[in-house]
């Protein structure tokens, strides 16, 4: 717009209303605005230019604009003037200028021709913005990105180390364990009656220990892998997942005389395998930690802002508030193995699954008696429109 006006920059002392308004704009601008002759000599210099370069107007008037360019980039001044002659606008040209104190400042420069009433290019205006801050920002971003990439690589490597470790653990640790168990059992069988009760008990203890070791190894593997493999996200019908889990728990459900009720459950964007394991662990816990009464278990879902909040509520023995965090730590148990068998990995796996999907899991006392496990699953972009 300035470029089609009758050249107010060349007449800073003009007194008409229009000129006064332009003058105010130029004076008040935070960008440096410099008027130039067609040959590139400075004809006006606003306060922002004085701030940016450290030269007063008197010091620069009549001097070639090329002098502002850093030695390394001075040739660009000539090139820009050639483009101006060709009646071309220059928009956000990034270059380096030199301040009065010889320091280098990175700038973005835009330049427009100014024409006389006959349309002849008689002068030019240049708007110059200090972009060193932006540059620093960009450099910072690049550094951060490089750092993130390095971390991602490290993580990938440590994941593959872990994967390797898990594999070795499942094979090489299990092998000797199997030998211990197998031969103890052979001993028990072949020499039954030739050993006394104490010897039989020792054998039983050793076999039991080896079997527990095996479950620990298996559970450790399950835990180390839970929520770590990249989730395969699809539209998962949670009702179907819960239905399948209930079917697979059939024998324990009828043995306990349990009743499981599920609300209307939504379809969510999630990893079906992980979600199945999550409900499997929560529901089998609800069956396992039952009190005297036959278990009554409820599965519900409700909207929580942009997330879904699921809950599994039972009428079992419950979890004391002071243990509410502890139960999610792998291998932490609240009860003796004799009372409630298991290694204590289930809820740890649940926590890893939920958190890997950006959610949160917690336990609270159920109304009356029992425990309520609540977890959230954040919305995925794909279900934002439902």
């Amino acid at each position, binding site marked *: 717009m300035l470029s089609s006006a009758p050249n107010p920059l060349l007449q800073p002392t003009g007194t008409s209303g229009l000129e006064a308004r332009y003058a105010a704009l130029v004076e008040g601008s935070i960008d440096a605005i410099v008027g130039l002759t067609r040959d590139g000599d400075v004809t006006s210099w606003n306060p922002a230019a004085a701030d940016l370069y450290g030269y007063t107007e008197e010091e620069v008037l009549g001097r070639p604009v090329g002098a502002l360019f850093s030695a390394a980039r001075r040739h660009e001044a000539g090139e820009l003037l050639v483009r101006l002659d060709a009646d071309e606008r220059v928009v956000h040209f990034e270059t380096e200028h030199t301040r009065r104190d010889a320091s280098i400042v990175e700038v973005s420069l835009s330049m427009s021709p100014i024409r006389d009433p006959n349309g002849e290019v008689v002068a030019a205006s240049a708007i110059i913005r200090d972009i060193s801050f932006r540059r620093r920002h960009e450099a910072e971003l690049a550094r951060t990105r490089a750092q993130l990439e390095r971390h991602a690589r490290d993580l990938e490597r440590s994941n593959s180390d872990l994967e390797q470790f898990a*594999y070795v653990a*499942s*094979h090489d640790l*299990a*092998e*000797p*364990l*199997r*030998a211990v*168990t*197998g*031969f103890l*059992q*052979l001993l028990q*069988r072949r020499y039954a009656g030739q050993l006394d009760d104490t010897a039989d008990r020792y054998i039983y203890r050793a076999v039991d220990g*080896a*079997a527990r070791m*095996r479950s620990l190894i298996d559970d450790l593997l399950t835990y180390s892998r839970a929520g770590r493999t990249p989730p395969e996200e699809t539209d998962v019908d949670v009702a179907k997942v819960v239905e399948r889990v209930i079917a697979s728990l059939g024998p324990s459900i009828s043995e306990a005389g349990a009743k499981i009720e599920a609300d209307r459950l939504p379809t969510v964007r999630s990893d079906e395998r992980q979600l199945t394991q999550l409900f499997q662990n929560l529901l089998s816990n609800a069956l396992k930690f039952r009190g005297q009464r036959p278990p009554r278990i409820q599965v519900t879902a409700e909207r929580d802002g942009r997330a879904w909040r699921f809950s599994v509520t039972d009428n079992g023995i419950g979890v004391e508030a002071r243990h509410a965090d502890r139960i999610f730590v792998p291998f932490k148990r609240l009860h003796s193995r004799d009372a409630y068998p298991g290694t204590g990995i289930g809820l740890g796996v649940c926590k890893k699954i939920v958190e890997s999907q950006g959610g949160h899991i917690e336990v609270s006392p159920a109304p009356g008696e029992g425990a309520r496990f609540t977890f959230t699953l954040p919305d995925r972009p794909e279900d934002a429109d439902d």
Partner: protein
Amino acid sequence: MTDAPFVPIRILLVEDSEADVELTREVLRDTKLVNELSVVGDGEQAMRYVHQEGEFADRERPDLILLDLNLPRKDGREVLEEIKAHPTLRRIPVIVLTMSGEERDVLSSYDAYVNAYLTKPLDLDSFATVARSIDDFWLSLVRLPSS
């Protein structure tokens, strides 16, 4: 007694752990059929055995191979692939019998045309059940190609 002439079924067990060999012998001993069980401890020996080469020149080809996956020198995966890529050896049923319940091992074994994939249970009774199942199915029910 007019049963068909008795032909023992030759099983090749490819297994490097001596403890496992002995346990497998024990559980197979309790099965119904009398079998000939030969044992080799690594994948290279297994290949020489099935090709009837070197120290195994006078052996007959096995009717069934029980293959562990993790073996010294040439591992079970390569053995499986080589057998299943061979025009005649590939007829021999190969059963992977391993500690590994890894999905990737299961998948790659079936991709290489394994005939069955079994995991070795820790418990002796369960292992005996596995052995009996092999016996019932592969050594009794299944008609194997005549060698």
